[in-house]
């Protein structure tokens, strides 16, 4: 199958509402693997729109992913894309960024990939303040392997490995990342794509380690097991009352946070933390002058 060539990329529009994401889409890599109702595709669109709004040269954008549903997204983005190993994307991205600092490096990870098997790599990349953007798609469950309990599954929720309801406490990824030293931390909902695009563009423009937790959905497993309805219902519910990890996080608030209009009451979304901190680029020759 070498007859289909990548499309050339016309400069995307930058009208503020939404650039032409298809300019950065590897249409020759379709069809995609996502289930009906999964919001991950909306997230990819927002990501590509954010790249377009910033006017980044696609030849200088690299997307790096681990393993899982979210990580499969990078194959559909027309950049240099690295689909690595489970949880290790921040480590691959660190080597890539240090070796070629002019690249804009975007990591795509999930809640299991980023917080369970890859938790160590995530917090150390944050601690070092590597100049990359990490998008963590949180759907509260392991989707690709069939709906097992995740470190983000809220207490009481049903998963294939928590048939009587989860009795572990979930992570608050944003608090974890602030604690680890990330210089930019935000949370957005996949149900509010315009807000999501703006936040992702803001995160990509940030100098230093930027972490964006994106509350996504998994109608196929999390929704079905917990009788939350299909994709549309889950997204609607997300904006009204929170969903999955959102419910678990509802009582936790960041003091300096202003919730955007669409966020459910009490759920900490938006930019939760921002600071200017020295970017780490490895041990290398010091710039002169």
């Amino acid at each position, binding site marked *: 199958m*070498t007859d289909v060539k990548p499309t050339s990329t016309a400069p995307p529009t930058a009208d503020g509402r939404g650039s032409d994401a298809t300019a950065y889409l590897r249409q020759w890599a379709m069809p995609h693997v996502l289930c009906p109702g999964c919001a991950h595709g909306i997230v990819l669109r927002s990501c590509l729109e954010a790249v377009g709004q910033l006017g980044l040269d696609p030849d200088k954008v690299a997307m790096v992913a681990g393993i899982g549903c979210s990580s499969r997204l990078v194959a559909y983005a027309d950049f240099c894309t690295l689909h690595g190993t489970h949880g*290790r994307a921040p480590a691959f991205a660190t080597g890539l960024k240090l070796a070629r600092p002019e690249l804009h490096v975007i990591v795509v990870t999930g809640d299991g990939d980023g917080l369970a098997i890859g938790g160590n790599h995530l917090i150390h990349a944050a601690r070092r303040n590597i100049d990359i953007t990490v998008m963590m798609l949180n759907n509260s469950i392991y989707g690709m392997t069939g709906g097992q309990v995740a470190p983000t599954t809220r207490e009481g929720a049903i998963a294939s490995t928590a048939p009587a309801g989860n009795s572990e406490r979930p992570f608050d990824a944003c608090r974890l990342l602030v604690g680890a030293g990330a210089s930019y931390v935000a949370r957005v909902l996949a149900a509010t794509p315009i807000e999501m695009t703006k936040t992702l563009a803001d995160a990509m423009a940030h100098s230093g380690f930027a972490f964006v937790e994106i509350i996504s959905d998994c109608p196929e497993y999390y929704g079905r097991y917990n009788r939350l309805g299909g994709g549309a219902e889950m997204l609607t519910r997300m904006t009204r009352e929170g969903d999955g990890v959102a419910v678990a996080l509802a009582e936790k608030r960041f003091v300096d946070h202003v919730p955007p209009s669409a966020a459910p009451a009490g759920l900490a979304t938006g930019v939760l933390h921002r600071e200017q901190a020295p970017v780490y680029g490895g041990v*290398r020759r010091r710039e002169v002058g």
Partner: protein
Amino acid sequence: MSPAELVTGNEACARAALAAGCRFYGGYPITPSSEIAEFMVSALPDVDGVFIQMEDEIASLAAVIGASLAGMKAMTATSGPGFSLMQEHIGFAAMAEVPCVVVNVMRGGPSTGLPTSPSQGDVMQARWGSHGDRPAIVLAPASVREVFDETVRAFNLAERFRTPVIVLYDEVIGHTAEGVVLPDQVPIEHRARPECNPEDFVAKAAPPDGVPPLPAFGDGYRFHVTGLSHDERGLPSDDGRNAEALAQRLQAKVDARTDELTHIETLGLDDAELAVFGYGIVGRSARAAVETARAEGRKVGLIRPITLWPFPHKEIAAVAEKVDRLIVAEMNLGQLIGEVERAAAGRTEIVGHLRCHGEPITPDDLTAVIGAHDRAPSLEVVGSWAGGVR
């Protein structure tokens, strides 16, 4: 030529890496390899390279792979416990075809084992440690100078074959300082880069030698890299026949060039009736013991593979054809001896001298073994090797 100087194996390894063009080091501290990292952190900035100490060995090799995809020659170094953790990404680098060099300064195992003692317990892990079928290039130097030469060769082979290359030596070689003359210039190879326009680039379309060209991220060629089985375009594919063809290509690109990869030192095989097989530091002891035996008029020969994998089956078979008995000495309870049995295929009697007592097998040890087996069969064999083809 530089003047002679006193250099340890680990320093020679680091200096060879720099000479070969290595510009990225990602690693995690572990005895007895840490001096390599300590040398690299001081030296890399002066050559516009980058050093990072990662959070573990898994991350170390991930960072190395990321840097290599960005176009830098990259390496890491470790020892047994870290090498176990690196298996995940050795497999990834083999599948995704990312050039990189992994140095394993072996210490006693299993587990945390004997951190400051030599061993050769990782020779099969170096070949088979990661899941699935993959090619393996493993080089086993026996001296400080050879560490330098084989590390240079490791970088060149990694670039030529687009695959991870493992340099395997032990704590004694790593920490021993020897008087050596190291070359100022070394042969340097670079990975093939695509010559086509970016829009015509097909990421995993392989030329006849089986090694697709590899552009760097950021060079204008936009492509996908994955550890999933993938098609010519580099995109994931679950087609079984495609997966088999990919696995066969990865294996064949190395196997087909085994002759070019095989480096062996031999001594006295023309008239030998008894031969000693040893590699790394044991190979060096074997050489001394064989020289002693030959000085006494005994018809004893040496076969010392420097390339452990791909394994020199043809050369072992030829030796087995000639000698009555082949002594295999290694610092483990019997790992490569099984491969020697397989290559010899019953053509000669295989005798093991197998130790994992945390000390190198010495020339005197092997002189005694040669003495025992040069006279009469079936004398005491140290170690637990029961013989037979596995």
